[in-house]
């Protein structure tokens, strides 16, 4: 029982972090049709900026200002670069963001070096929140979950109840009409791109000190967030929410499953030994392949339900 509950909590916190990272990407894609390959790089930038700010001013100013700075960077990228490339089509924008990810990686390495930086959890958030049976659940994981849920709630309220949110929703499907009504649609796009990047930056601020802040962190999460938005459905925020929770829980529980094809065959009487052909594959347990399960899910979704769990647009 202890194991099931603790693993559920761990899975949820990992899933919510994934959601924080991928929500921005979903918004940008549903708004502008641009698949931002540099999204994970903005996540990394958020973590490094938070490290820089927190070493001078503390964690809480970093929590506020680092996402704003990343959002500002995103807006500048959209206004002065992405918009110019837009006239050449979606593929060009995609290639541009792909190149941007490499440039951002090198800039980060030039500024902060190639070694991980000691961006640590603030002293006030260290320690256990509660003890379930005999396992402590860290305060910081609960904090990450709280930030993610607050963020989800705020985006939802923003999009449904504010004027700018209504304009964004309208520009999603009828950009020309919205422009004809006198709204500055390019500026809306710039704000959405900046907002999406700010969300990634916020994920970096809270995730960078729980996991390691190093130049490789963008590459590690980059592919997972694409899995999330494909499985959830391109363009659907709710879809990416459920997909990230699903992947978070799946990966976390999979670690506990020591079953392999070999053990399955063993149950029906076929003993597998090291000399059996294909032993290496048969002996692979679910636990040791836990980290690649999201990609297996991606392939299954693309084969059987390409529009994702709750997708609104075909890729």
């Amino acid at each position, binding site marked *: 029982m202890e194991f099931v509950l603790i693993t559920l909590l761990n899975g949820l916190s990992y899933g919510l972090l994934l959601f924080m990272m991928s929500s921005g990407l979903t918004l940008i894609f549903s708004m502008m049709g641009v698949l931002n390959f540099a999204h994970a790089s903005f996540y990394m930038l958020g973590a490094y900026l938070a490290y820089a700010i927190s070493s001078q001013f503390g964690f809480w100013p970093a929590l506020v200002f680092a996402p704003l700075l990343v959002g500002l960077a995103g807006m500048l990228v959209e206004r002065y670069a992405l918009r110019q490339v837009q006239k050449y089509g979606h593929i060009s924008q995609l290639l541009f963001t792909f190149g941007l990810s490499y440039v951002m990686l090198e800039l980060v390495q030039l500024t902060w070096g190639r070694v991980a930086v000691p961006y640590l959890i603030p002293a006030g958030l260290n320690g256990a929140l509660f003890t379930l049976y005999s*396992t402590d659940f860290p305060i910081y994981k609960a904090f990450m979950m709280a930030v993610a849920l607050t963020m989800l709630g705020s985006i939802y309220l923003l999009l449904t109840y504010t004027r700018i949110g209504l304009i964004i929703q309208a520009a999603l499907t009828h950009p020309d009409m919205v422009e004809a009504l006198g709204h500055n649609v390019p500026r809306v796009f710039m704000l959405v791109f900046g907002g999406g990047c700010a969300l990634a930056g916020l994920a970096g601020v809270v995730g960078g000190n729980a*996991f390691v802040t190093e130049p490789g962190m963008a590459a590690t999460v980059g592919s997972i967030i694409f899995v999330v938005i494909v499985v959830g459905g391109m363009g659907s925020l709710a879809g990416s929410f459920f997909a990230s929770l699903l992947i978070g829980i799946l990966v976390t529980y999979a670690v506990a499953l020591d079953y392999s094809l070999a053990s399955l065959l063993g149950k029906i009487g076929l003993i597998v030994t090291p000399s059996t052909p294909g032993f290496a594959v048969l002996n692979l347990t679910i636990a040791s392949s836990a980290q690649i399960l999201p990609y297996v899910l991606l392939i299954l979704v693309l084969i059987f339900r390409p529009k994702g769990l709750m997708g609104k647009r075909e890729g």
Partner: protein
Amino acid sequence: MKINTAQKVFSTVSLTAATLFGMSTAHAETIKIAYIDAVTGPFAPLIKNSTNTLQMYVERANKEHWAGDNTFELIVLDGKASPQESLQQLKIASDQGVRYIIHQVGSGVALALVDAINKFNDRNPGKEIVYFNGASIAPALTNSKCSFWHFRFDGNTDMKMDGITNTLAKDKNIKNVYIIGQNYAHGQEFSKAAKEMLAAKRPDIKIVGDDLHPIGTVKDFSPYIAKIKASGADTVLTGNWGQDLVLLVKAAKDAGLKTNFYTFYAYFDGTPTALGADAADRVKMVTNWTNNAETDAANTELIKTYKARYGQDFEFLSNEGIIGMLSKAIKQTKSTDTIKVAYALEGMKFNGLSGEIEMRKADHQIQEPMYIVTWTKVNGTTVKNDSEGTGYGWRTDLKIPLADSVQPTTCQMVRPAQ
């Protein structure tokens, strides 16, 4: 043109003198050494430490003429902990005429390098490359895959596992052991050796778990910690190193897991800080050196100056063996030819920071004393120096003399003509 007698005499004398000079003095060469390792990536701080250590020893060797008139030049290449990348760097190095390669971490990379160097040496007689392995401890490299061109300067898995399981076996309170490792050559060999040796020494101990996780990619070990808790283990036995050990220890601390940890590499950068006060007296390690192991002048001076200069704790003892013994071999043979140097290294004894070590001729495995140490608070007597400024350090429980750490080998080495 008439050449008079004086000119003839002069030219003969000078030509003879030049020839004699050329024959009698040895060339003072600059010997290039390439260090191929994971300079970027999750293990970068470790490799930075290793690079600093190598540069320090190369400087010292050049200043104090360890290799006679010859000097060393160190070239650092980024293998990114990937066999393909490291082989590319090997090609770059060999194209530059480098004949000595050093590499530390990653048995997967080591196996690829040994294979590539064997093939290169077969195809390029006269340009053979020698490979110094500082930390890849998969036993195969000095058993079934042993090579004349490979020299290992760190105790292999069997040697270390023997030492640590002897200590583990003595503790009658240990009943359930959980083995966790990185899913590559080292982690797999570690698990195999652990199960064999524990079954032989303490058949009553239950192995309640045996996990392999992808190397350098898992950032959140809490699912594994939950699994360890659920298994009822009282001891975790792991060969994890670098970031994989730091994050494992961090996750254990976060979840309040209070098992023993028996490790190989808990002294590498980052892990002492993660252990901290919380892990006092619960973590044991088998190693070839700590900063509390020996108290002679050479050790004391090194510990102080290394920390002052580089801001990191000295860890890579194998680099002392590599540069020290290579220099000695070059001085002895008065040559930089790799075959002669390799033959000189076989059976060579060397006095290092941990005492006398010997490069065994049969399999090119270094034979060295080892220490079983426990993580505990600095007390000024048994634990004088701390690690990474934590106030805690390694107390030597037992020094295993060289003779007791010897393990058998199945190596059938093929040697080239001398």
